[in-house]
């Protein structure tokens, strides 16, 4: 008996279908990605290794920098290159700005309407006009910074395998830092107002284990170690021992389990695992085990990213720029895994390089990792709203379910980068 | 045409002729076209030296003289053959086959592409604007280099062209 079905979940990146049904007494949720497969891993196969970042950054326009940085780090590890401190910091700074920008867009335009009781964006203005205008200003400022230092908002072109492709000028770095300084106050204001509006519903996380990247320096910088909520920590290169991927038939995207159980990644996971790397993420008292709290943490991360990126950029401007190493013309042999904290959570790029070419590629995106966890939370949410087999109020259940999915901020184009689709459409 | 353009004895060099012609028209920029016409009627074309002298006389840059010399169809800058065969490219003549005649003549005289004069310098083949006697289409006019001899043929066919060539070769032999 079908309890709830949303054919086309709105206000998410890409096409998604959600279905919850009761199957002989047991509630089951299905996270069906109906977005067309994009075979990114196949495209990369056989290309020269220095072209990987160009393909990877085109997986999705929202967080193209995260994919760009992750794929570059993966290829660098495969070829045994070290881009140097300066370049690593530069990449972190750019990544943080993109995280802030992504969170902004998600909170202000995709998630907020649920919490202000309006349907679409147009009437959002009447309810949260000031917040929308401020977030738009902030969004433009972030995009200006990204364009200034990454070359372009989408498909950046200042970074390359082995470091920067061109000697950076001190001017743009300082200018970027100024832009960020101007909108620090704005960021705080946006976050405070968002937090007042975000009254998240109650929900207990059924499988509260999560994964995140241990930062090299401060919170949200990339690193070479992955932490799990079970206290485990492993090297990215042997991610396969802990995270195994499977392909549900009903969805175009794969699903990931951490040693068998559903796992979630994203702001909530980061906050839980990396709290001691934090300085001042002033998060109000919330129940971390509630999946909806992911929104709260995302909101809090915005001002943090803006300030942190500003500081890194100012520091970079002062230090003498070392633009990294030139990649070997005829490539090399090796295998590398690059990880990064994308706005929506842990992102893993894994490439095998032989000679000049890529022979094998595997990408795991945050939405893939969250897939099973979303199903678990949806199941828990439905059970809490259903008594003796029938939903108390069908409309409310459906609304709550879509709010839950939006809390994870799934990015479907990234999720369907898979090489082979074995699943069939659910009958 | 003769009364309009007083002919000047031809043995002088192009430069000297240009000097006289410029003086004749009072070195006025207005009469540039007339001067060029007089020079061309003497030599059949505009020698480079004459153009340079004209430019000096009129105190205008050589490029300006060349602009006029190259714009108008009447003027030639290279030395034409003894006889210049002009095929009329008016509409009626084109329709009646002068286009084919032109191809025939160039191949018959073996004129290399890009040039309009035969290698032995006897004949030049040119396309001319409409002579205005369309009832005789297709029309061909044969003019001597100095313009003293002018003969027009109507209803021209490749066979007739061969006779014209032969006729003028004989005329040239007689003259030499």
């Amino acid at each position, binding site marked *: 008996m079908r309890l709830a079905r949303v054919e086309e979940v709105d206000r998410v990146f890409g096409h998604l279908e959600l279905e919850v049904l009761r199957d002989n007494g047991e509630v089951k949720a299905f996270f069906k990605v109906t977005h067309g497969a994009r075979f990114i891993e196949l495209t990369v196969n056989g290309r020269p290794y220095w072209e990987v970042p160009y393909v990877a950054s085109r997986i999705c326009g929202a967080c193209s920098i995260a994919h760009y940085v992750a794929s570059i780090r993966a290829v660098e590890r495969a070829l045994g290159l070290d881009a140097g401190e300066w370049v690593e910091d530069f990449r972190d700074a750019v990544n943080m700005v993109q995280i802030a920008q992504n969170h902004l867009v998600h909170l202000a335009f995709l998630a907020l309407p649920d919490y202000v009781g309006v349907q679409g964006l147009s009437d959002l203005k009447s309810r949260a006009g000031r917040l929308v205008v401020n977030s738009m200003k902030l969004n433009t400022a972030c995009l200006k910074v990204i364009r200034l230092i990454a070359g372009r908002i989408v498909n950046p072109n200042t970074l390359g395998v082995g470091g920067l492709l061109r000697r950076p000028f001190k001017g743009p770095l300082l200018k970027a830092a100024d832009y960020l300084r101007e909108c620090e106050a704005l960021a705080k204001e946006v976050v405070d107002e968002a937090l007042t509006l975000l009254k998240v519903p109650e929900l207990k996380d059924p499988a509260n284990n999560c994964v995140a990247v241990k930062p090299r320096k401060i919170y949200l910088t990339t690193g070479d170690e992955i932490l799990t909520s079970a206290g485990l920590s492993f090297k990215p290169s042997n991610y396969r021992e802990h995270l195994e991927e499977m392909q549900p038939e009903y969805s175009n995207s794969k699903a990931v389990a951490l040693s068998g159980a559903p796992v979630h990644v994203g702001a909530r996971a980061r906050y839980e695992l990396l709290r001691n790397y934090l300085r001042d993420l002033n998060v109000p008292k919330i129940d971390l085990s509630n999946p909806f709290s992911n929104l709260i943490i995302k909101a809090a991360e915005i001002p943090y990213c803006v300030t942190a990126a500003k500081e890194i950029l100012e520091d970079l401007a002062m230090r003498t720029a070392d633009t990294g190493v030139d990649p070997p013309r005829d490539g090399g042999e090796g295998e590398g895994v690059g990880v990064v904290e994308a706005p929506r959570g842990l992102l893993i790029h894994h490439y095998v390089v032989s000679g000049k070419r890529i022979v094998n590629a595997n990408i795991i995106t945050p939405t893939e990792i969250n897939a099973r966890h979303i199903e678990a939370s949806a199941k828990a949410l439905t059970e809490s709203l259903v008594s003796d087999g029938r939903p108390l109020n069908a409309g409310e259940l459906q609304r709550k379910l879509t709010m839950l999915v939006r809390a994870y901020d799934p990015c479907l184009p990234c999720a369907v980068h898979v090489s082979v689709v074995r699943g069939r459409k659910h009958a | 045409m003769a009364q*309009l353009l007083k002919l000047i004895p031809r043995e002088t060099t192009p430069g000297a002729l240009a000097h006289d012609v410029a003086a004749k028209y009072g070195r006025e920029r*207005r009469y540039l076209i007339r001067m060029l016409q007089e020079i061309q009627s003497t030599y059949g074309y505009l020698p480079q030296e004459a153009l340079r002298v004209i430019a000096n006389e009129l105190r205008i840059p050589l490029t300006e003289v060349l602009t006029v010399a190259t714009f108008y169809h009447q003027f030639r800058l290279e030395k034409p053959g003894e006889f210049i065969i002009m095929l009329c490219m008016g*509409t009626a003549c*084109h*329709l009646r086959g002068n*286009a084919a005649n032109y191809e025939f003549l160039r191949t018959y005289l073996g004129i290399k592409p890009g040039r309009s004069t035969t290698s032995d310098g006897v004949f030049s083949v040119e396309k001319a604007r409409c002579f205005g006697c*369309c*009832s005789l289409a297709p*029309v061909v006019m044969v003019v001597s280099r100095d313009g003293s001899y002018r003969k027009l043929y109507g209803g021209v066919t490749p066979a007739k062209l061969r006779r014209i060539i032969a006729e003028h070769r004989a005329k040239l032999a007689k003259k030499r």
Partner: protein
Amino acid sequence: MGDDGSWNLMSRCCGKCWHSLEYPCRNYIRCRTEGPLCHDDQRCRTLRSERVRYIKEGPNGYRIKVPLASCSIAAGAKEVLDAVKEVVESLGIPSDAVKTVGCTGLCYLDPWLELKAPGMPAALYGNVKPAEVEGILKKYFIENDVSGAYAISERTGKARGEGDVPTLSELDVWRLQVRYVSRNCGVVNPESIEDYIAYGGYRGLDRALRMSPEEVIEEVKKSGLRGRGGAGFPTWLKWRICRNQPSKEKYVIVNADEGDPGAFMNRLLAESDPHRVLEGLIIAGYAVGATKGFIFVRAEKPLMAERLQKAVEEARKHGILGKNILGRGFDFDVEVILSAGAFVCGEETALIAAIEGRATPRQRPPYPAVVGLWGKPTVINNVETLAHVATLMAEGWESFAAYGTERSKGTKMFCVTGAVKRTGAYEVPIGTTLRTLVEKIAGGVKEGRKLKAVQIGGPSGGCVPAHLLDTPIDYESLRDAGAIMGSGGIVVMDDTACMVDVARYFTSFIVAESCGKCFPCRIGTKILYDTLTKITEGKGTLEDLEILESVGRVVRDASLCALGGTAPNPVLSTLRHFRDEYLAHIIDKKCPAGVCTKLLKYRINPDKCVGCGTCAKHCPAGAISKDEKSGKYVIDQEKCVKCGTCVTICPVNAVVKEV
């Protein structure tokens, strides 16, 4: 006194007449033929009437007219004239009976001869060879036999063989014409002012000078005369605008450039009746208040320039040009300017620029009537327009307005050339249908051929297909049919003409003649030409048609002057009416009319070929060789230049042209 000392109409009849260049008599012109006016003397009167009769009918009624216009000379009129002069003495006909005249416009008869003996009908002989002259003259003057004539003036019943020779008025080619402005062509001796005045010349000027300039403009306005150069701009309006300009110095220019290939109306008028054009120019100068006039003639038409120059010199000699013309205090002089031959000079601003130096058109407005030659107000009128002005001033505006439609008045001269039996220049009232002009007057296409289209207006005009032949000829209806009135050049095309090739021909003409100043015309026409060449070589594609249409449209809209503005007309009108031919070239790679050389092949039919080898001998490109095995001859398609010599040469016509 005439230059040979004998008395002529222009000289004073007796002591009482005080006319001189310094103190010209106002009635000088009317007095030439209707005089003497200031005194009554029978001797002076008979002196004039005798002279007029001598001019009109020749010495005691004997007259031999020989046409000396460029085209008749080209057709051999000079040799005929020499032959006539020799024969005349032996026949005892007074030598001054021979009169050289202009051209009547019946080009298909060139060179013609007109004989008149007292009591005999005047007889017109066509395509006269110098050798035949003696026979013709003897037959006419001695045996009074007109049987060999092409036409006679009227039936007197006296001449033998009159019955089977048609009179001129019976022939369609003459009957349907209204020779309003070309009345003197082929009648007067173009190089004698006396002739012109004897036939009523300069009456228009005389009448105009008696009126005020405004009245002259009013008269032209009432007549409804519109410019004959092609645009059809009302002449009075141009004059009025120029007259109202404050500047002291003004000019009038006769546009005798006539660059259209296949158009020679202006040359015919100027070579046959130059004084009429000059008279129109002086009237225009008077009406507008100009001080100087120019006649801008093309270098390729030297005889035309010569005759106009002679007319100017004669008019100056008799006080009709220069200071205080006919005692009216109006000073006006004329200079003939020779252009070096550029089609763009037909455009008024380019013509002005050509006089000032290099011929490139200028953006209008300001129109030349306001800012023209050397910055002064200038009126530019076509040769035929001014000839009409002179005639309508002499005859009164009603005579002009009697013809034509309510929107375009009067008559227009057209040169009908191409695949017609009777090529020539004919003057018909505006509004006559194309069918009358092409089929009735010009005799339609030759036997065994079908009429396909009529091209009007030269490179700026369009092609009117056969089924629109009933379109009346006037400015508006021609524009609707996709053509323009233009200068009046009409080229008739039968089924041997390929419309794509015609469009390409006109575009190649425009590409050569474009002055290159503005981008659309300079580059656009070249693109049109290259695309059309591609199509004629069988390499065309369907979107080439779109390129033709879109580029054509932009060249028409965006070009600076009328040359570029009308350049795409031939292409657009052939595309509109003959799209199937374009498709045949593109899709089946075939030229239905067998014109486009790249698409047709010459092949020798082996069973007909007898192996004589004449074709190989005559082939200019050496493309025919003997196939040793079969003994027959074969054409090598690469070398063949498709000139068609082999088809005509082959004794057994074994050569076949495959489309």
